[in-house]
C-alpha cells in the first residue's frame, strides 16, 4: 500500500491496511441516496474485518521482523536494542488484537451460515498478495 511506503522514509514502518481501517470503513463520504452495500453486513462485519485484517498483518509483521534478524552475527544473546524493542512492541500491540480476535472469530464462525467462508479462503493468501504488491517490496528494500 502506497500509504506506508511513503511514510517509512521518516516514520517507523508500522503502517498497514489495518492502521487506516477506521478511516476507510468509518470516514469518507456517504451519500444518502446511495446505499451502503449490505450496510448491515458491513456494520456487523467491521469487528470481524478488523480481526481478520489484524491477524494477517500480524503474520506479515512477524515474518518480516524475523526476516530482518541475523542471529548469526548478533552473537545469539542480544539483538541491537532498537530492533528488539521494535519487534516486541509490534508483537505486544498486535498479538493482543489477534488473540482476543480469535475468540470473536470463533463465535462468529459458529453463527455463520454454511458456504459463507469465502472470505476465510481469501485471507489465507497474503503471500500471493504481498509478492504482487510493489509497495511492500519497495518498503522491504528500503528497510534493508
Amino acid at each position, binding site marked *: 500500500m502506497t500509504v506506508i511506503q511513503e511514510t517509512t*522514509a*521518516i516514520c517507523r514502518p508500522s503502517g498497514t491496511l489495518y492502521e487506516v*481501517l477506521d*478511516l*476507510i470503513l468509518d470516514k469518507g463520504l*456517504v*451519500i444518502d441516496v*446511495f446505499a451502503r452495500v449490505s450496510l448491515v453486513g*458491513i456494520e456487523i462485519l467491521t469487528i470481524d474485518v478488523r480481526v481478520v485484517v489484524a491477524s494477517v498483518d500480524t503474520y506479515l509483521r512477524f515474518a518480516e521482523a524475523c526476516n530482518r534478524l541475523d542471529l548469526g552475527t548478533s552473537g545469539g544473546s542480544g539483538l541491537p536494542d532498537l530492533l528488539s524493542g521494535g519487534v516486541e512492541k509490534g508483537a505486544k500491540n498486535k498479538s493482543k488484537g489477534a488473540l482476543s480476535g480469535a475468540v470473536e472469530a470463533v463465535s462468529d464462525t459458529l453463527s455463520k451460515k454454511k458456504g459463507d467462508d469465502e472470505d476465510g479462503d481469501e485471507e489465507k493468501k497474503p503471500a500471493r*498478495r504481498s509478492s504482487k504488491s510493489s509497495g511492500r517490496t519497495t518498503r522491504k528494500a528500503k528497510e534493508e
Partner: protein
Amino acid sequence: MSTYVYGIVHDDESLDGLELSGVGREPAPVRFVRARGIAAVVSDAPEGLRAKRRDLTAHQEVLQELTRRRGVLPMRFGVVSQDDDAVTEQLRDKGDHYSALLSRLEGRVEFNVKAVYVEEEVLKALLRDDRALRERNESLRRSGGGTPAERMAFGERVARALEERKGRDAATVVRPLTEHAERVATGPLVDDCLTNTSFLLPWKGREEFLRRAATVQRETDAYMDVRVNGPMPPYSFVEPPRN
C-alpha cells in the same frame, strides 16, 4: 448492474487515459461518470461485495492514485448506487457542493496519527513520577505482592493515574503537529490508542509535517508508539451535501 462509487474528482481530459483496477475478484475496470465539470469514479459493483482485505485495498489504492493527481473526495468503503444514471443525477443535483468541496480540498492530504502506550515503559514512567505510587508498589513487593484486595486497590490507583496521564500524553503528540495542519479531526480510540487524530495539510507541507512527526516520535519513543499514516485522501474532512 449496480455501480460502486469510489469518490468524486474534478473532470478533465487527464481522466481519459487513466487505467485503474477496482474491487472484485476479477478487478473491475474503473470508469468515470461525468456531469457539470465533476466526475464520479466508479466501477461495476461485484456480486456479494463485502469488506475484505482485497477490496478494501483496491478501494484505498484507487483513491491513493487520485490523491496523487488533482485530489478526490473519498467515499467510505462500500457505497453503491443503483446504476450510473443515479450517479449522474446526484452529480447534477449536488454538483455545486462537490465542486466547492473539491476546490477547498485541492492539493491537500490527510495524515493520521495514532499513539499507543508501550505498557511496561509507561508503567515505569508512572512509578518514577509518582512517589506515593512508587512507595506503595515497593511495599507491596516487599510483602510478596500483598493480598488480592491490596493488589486490586493498587491496580485501580495505577489505572486512574494512567487515565490522567493519557490526556497529557495525547496533547504532547497532537499539539506540535496541529501547528502544521489546516484542520484537525479526532477519530475513535480504536485498539486502546490514546489518540487517533487526522490532520489536513497542503501537499507541499507534508515534509515539514513528517519531520515534526519524527521529532515527536523520537521524544516519546521511550514509552509511546506513535504511528503516522499518509498522505491519504481527506477521509476525515469531507462533508456530505445538505438536503
